[in-house]
C-alpha cells in the first residue's frame, strides 16, 4: 500500500489541501494505521506550536466611560455666558471713535462710455411725484 506523504498529511491536518483531495485521503486513513499514526503525531505537533502559554501580567480594567449630554450642555452654556460677558465688558470699557462716513461717491470716476447709457447719472436724483 502506498502511504500518504507527510507533507500531504500536514496539509490535511491544517485544512490547507484542496477540498477535492480530502475524500481520497480520508478513505486511505480509514484503511492505513501507519498514516493515522503519522497524522496523530502531526496534530500533536500543531497543538504544541499553537499552544504556548505565556505568563500573564497585571492588566487593569479600563474605566467605563459614562457618556452624558448634560456636562456638554453645561460646558457650552458656560462658554457662551463667559464669551458674552467678556464681549460686553470689553465693548463698554473701550471708548469708541465716532464713525465718519465720507460721501466718497462724489469722488467716484464716471462710468465708461460703453456703460454710461445704462448707468444712472446721479443716484441721488430720485424723481418724486
Amino acid at each position, binding site marked *: 500500500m502506498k502511504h500518504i506523504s507527510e507533507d500531504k498529511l500536514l496539509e490535511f491536518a*491544517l485544512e490547507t489541501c484542496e477540498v477535492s483531495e480530502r475524500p481520497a485521503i480520508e478513505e486511505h486513513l480509514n484503511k492505513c494505521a501507519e498514516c493515522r499514526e503519522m497524522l496523530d503525531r502531526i496534530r500533536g505537533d500543531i497543538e504544541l506550536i499553537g499552544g*504556548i502559554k505565556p505568563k500573564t501580567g497585571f492588566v487593569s480594567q479600563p474605566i467605563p466611560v459614562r457618556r452624558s449630554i448634560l456636562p456638554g450642555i453645561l460646558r457650552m452654556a458656560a462658554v457662551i455666558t463667559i464669551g458674552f460677558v467678556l464681549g460686553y465688558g470689553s465693548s463698554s470699557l473701550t471708548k469708541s471713535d465716532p464713525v465718519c462716513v465720507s460721501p466718497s461717491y462724489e469722488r467716484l470716476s464716471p462710468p465708461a462710455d460703453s456703460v454710461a447709457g445704462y448707468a444712472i447719472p446721479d443716484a441721488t436724483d430720485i424723481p418724486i411725484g
Partner: protein
Amino acid sequence: MQEDGCETVNSDWECFFRARDGDSPAWHEILERHQSRLAALALLMTGSAAASDDIVQETFLRAFKSRIHHRQGSVRGFLTTIAYRLALKETQHEKRKVELDSGSIEDRNCDPLERLLSSERDRHIAKAIRSLDNDHRDVLTLRFYGDHSYDDIAKLMNIPIGTVKSRMFYAVKRCREHLREKGIIE
C-alpha cells in the same frame, strides 16, 4: 468559570459588554478567556515582553473605548485583530525590539523569553515561530493565537486565501523541522 462571572450569561459578547460597563467578575472572566492568547500573539509578533504587556493592556483599552454594540464575529477575533494591528505597528516602529536569537536559550539570564515563558519547550517553540519571516509568522500567529479563519486572515492581511494557506503550511513545516532539530518533537 467564576460563579458570579459569565456562567449565566452564556455569551462572550454579553460578558464583554458587562466588563466594559465596569462589572468586575465579567472583567476577570474576559481576562481569563483571552489574556493569555493575546499575550502570546503580541510576544510572538514583537519578540518583546514589555511590548507584549503594553499591547494587551492597549487592546482592552481600545476595545472598551469602542462604541460597538453588535455581536457579529467573536470577541476573540475582535480582540486579536486589535492586538495584531498594535503588534504590527510596534514591529514597524521597532520600539523596544528584543532580538530573541541573541544568546543561547540555555543562558537564562539573557533570555528575554524567560520572563513570559516558564517552560523551556515553550521557549523553543517561540524561537521556532520567531525564526520565520514576518509574512509566515503573522499567518501562523493569527491562525493559532487569534483563532482567525483562513478567509479572515486573507482579508486582514489583504492577500489571496491561497497565499494564506501556502504560508501556513510552510510556517508549520519550518517550525516542525526546527523543533525536530532541537529534539522537542520526534
